């Protein structure tokens, strides 16, 4: 465990080198939120009304929360980096180091995520207060617990991204799979809560990884209650275990097929 903490620490130090460029790059979050603010403002003709159980303020805070988490993790980069490692054989050179590759990527990714979250989350909370006011039914402990579930949900997302990247062992290009995955996640759970989806698929979605990844934590953030927290945590633990096993299996199968010649 100590070595993974060290990897985390080292990558965190690395991320600090890019603090200025990250802040500049994150300004787009303001633009995105401003667009959604206006869009939902139009849809909520009466700000006091509820759409699918969400008030206008809840809806904006929901998107602010999911978009912040989304901006802190670059799934496309995770997939692309692993694919590149697999294709150019670099992954082979990581194999003769005494660490687990999956844990190595997880530690590195989480260091970067932590660095970005420490900047973006306070900024997003300030932005939300300026644009729409307080978080509905604000409860400090509830908010903190929702953020923790957000982190766990991101971990599920990262494990899925790593699995997609590792598919490069078996196929030419894993990018189209990630493209489909990212668009599904963006629409379901990130921009729109599950309640906005057709009723027929809602029960399925509530048992899907989307519940653990973005919908559950974001709903907790805008409407915290302990019963729901337990449900989210249970689904997160299950999906973390399932995807950790899947990712390791894909990796183990992949490295047996590794084909690095030349040099």
């Amino acid at each position, binding site marked *: 465990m100590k070595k993974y903490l060290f990897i985390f620490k080292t990558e965190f*130090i690395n991320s600090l080198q890019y603090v200025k460029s990250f802040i500049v790059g994150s300004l787009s979050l303001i633009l995105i939120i401003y667009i959604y603010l206006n869009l939902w403002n139009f849809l909520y003709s009466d700000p006091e009304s509820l759409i699918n159980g969400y008030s206008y303020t809840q809806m904006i805070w929901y998107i602010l929360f999911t978009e912040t988490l989304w901006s802190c993790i670059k799934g496309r980069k995770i997939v692309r980096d692993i694919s590149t490692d697999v294709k150019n054989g670099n992954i082979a*050179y990581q194999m003769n180091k*005494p660490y687990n590759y999956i844990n190595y990527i997880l530690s590195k990714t989480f260091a970067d995520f932590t660095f970005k979250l420490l900047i973006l989350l306070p900024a997003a909370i300030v932005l939300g207060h300026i644009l729409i006011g307080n978080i509905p039914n604000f409860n400090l402990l509830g908010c903190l617990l929702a953020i923790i579930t957000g982190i766990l949900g991101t971990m599920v997302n990262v494990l899925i991204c790593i699995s997609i990247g590792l598919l490069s062992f078996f196929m030419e290009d894993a990018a189209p799979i990630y493209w489909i995955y990212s668009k599904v996640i963006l629409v379901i759970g990130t921009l729109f809560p599950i309640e906005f989806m057709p009723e027929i698929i809602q029960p399925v979605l509530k048992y899907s990884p989307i519940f653990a990844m973005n919908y559950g934590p974001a709903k907790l953030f805008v409407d915290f209650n302990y019963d729901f927290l337990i449900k989210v945590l249970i689904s997160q633990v299950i999906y973390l275990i399932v995807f950790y096993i899947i990712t390791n299996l894909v990796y183990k199968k992949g490295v047996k097929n590794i084909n690095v010649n030349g040099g």
Partner: protein
Amino acid sequence: MSVIEVKNLSKTFKSKVKGKGLKGSIKSIFKPKYKTIKAVNKVSFNVEKGEMVAFIGPNGAGKSTTIKMLTGILYPDNGDIKILGLDPRKNRKKLAYEIGTVFGQKEQLWTHLTPYDNFKFFGAIYDMKDYEIEKKIEELKALFELDEFINTPVKSLSLGQRIRCEIACSLINDPKILFLDEPTIGLDPVVKENIRSFIKRMNKECHTTVFLTSHDVGDIEKLCKRVIIINNGTVVLDDTMENLKYHYLNKKIIDAKMKEKINLDDEKGIKILKDKGYNLKIEVDLKEKNISDAIKLLDPDKIIDINISNTPLEEIISDIYKKDK
């Protein structure tokens, strides 16, 4: 005591064969064809503790594939490997604690970090305690003379300094065997010489076994006492450097500057390599003709300057490669 034992090691690769043009591309989607390439074929050798062995061969000979199997990166199809008594297939992680690797074309250091931070990082990866890491860093700093730039980010170092750090870093865990794959690639002659002296010193002071692949004859000649030549996936020569030179250095090259033109043709034991009128370069096969007879052929009275040298090791190795074809 053998630290590397390799017996009948074989590895084949399957590669897709595609037909010509659009038709061939479409056909290969529905009916892909593959060809099998035998990269390594029944390779066997042993390496003793503390030895410095050169493992050489032309491009595509199978040396990198072999080194990757020895370090657990690739799985062999057949054969047995024992590195320090461990099978790399089954004990890759355990073995990783016992060996060090430097692949000249691949960076392992984090470029934004200083060498010091990199050493700390890799020390932690190898589960070393803080005081052990610090002690080792002090040793490596002295051995590789890193004092001047140990706190400079790796990205700001010259290539030679970086390679020095790469090798030093691969020694952080006190490996019993160091695998060096083209460690001096891309370096200028002075830096190469420098790196070689560090490797030599490391072998002498730490008794680390060195398994080296290189295309640079200088690396091989100056570092290794034993050479294994691999070509087309099989070992074609496994001998000491001394024997290699003794058996293959039976030719001499004579470079002569003449007062006047002389007419000389190829004959038994004599091969004209260059004839530019007043400048002659001939190869003498000492099994066929002795050197004094060869000089007599040139007419000693007409010689202004003469230089007699051995065949360069590079040519000897190249001849061995060609013979094997």
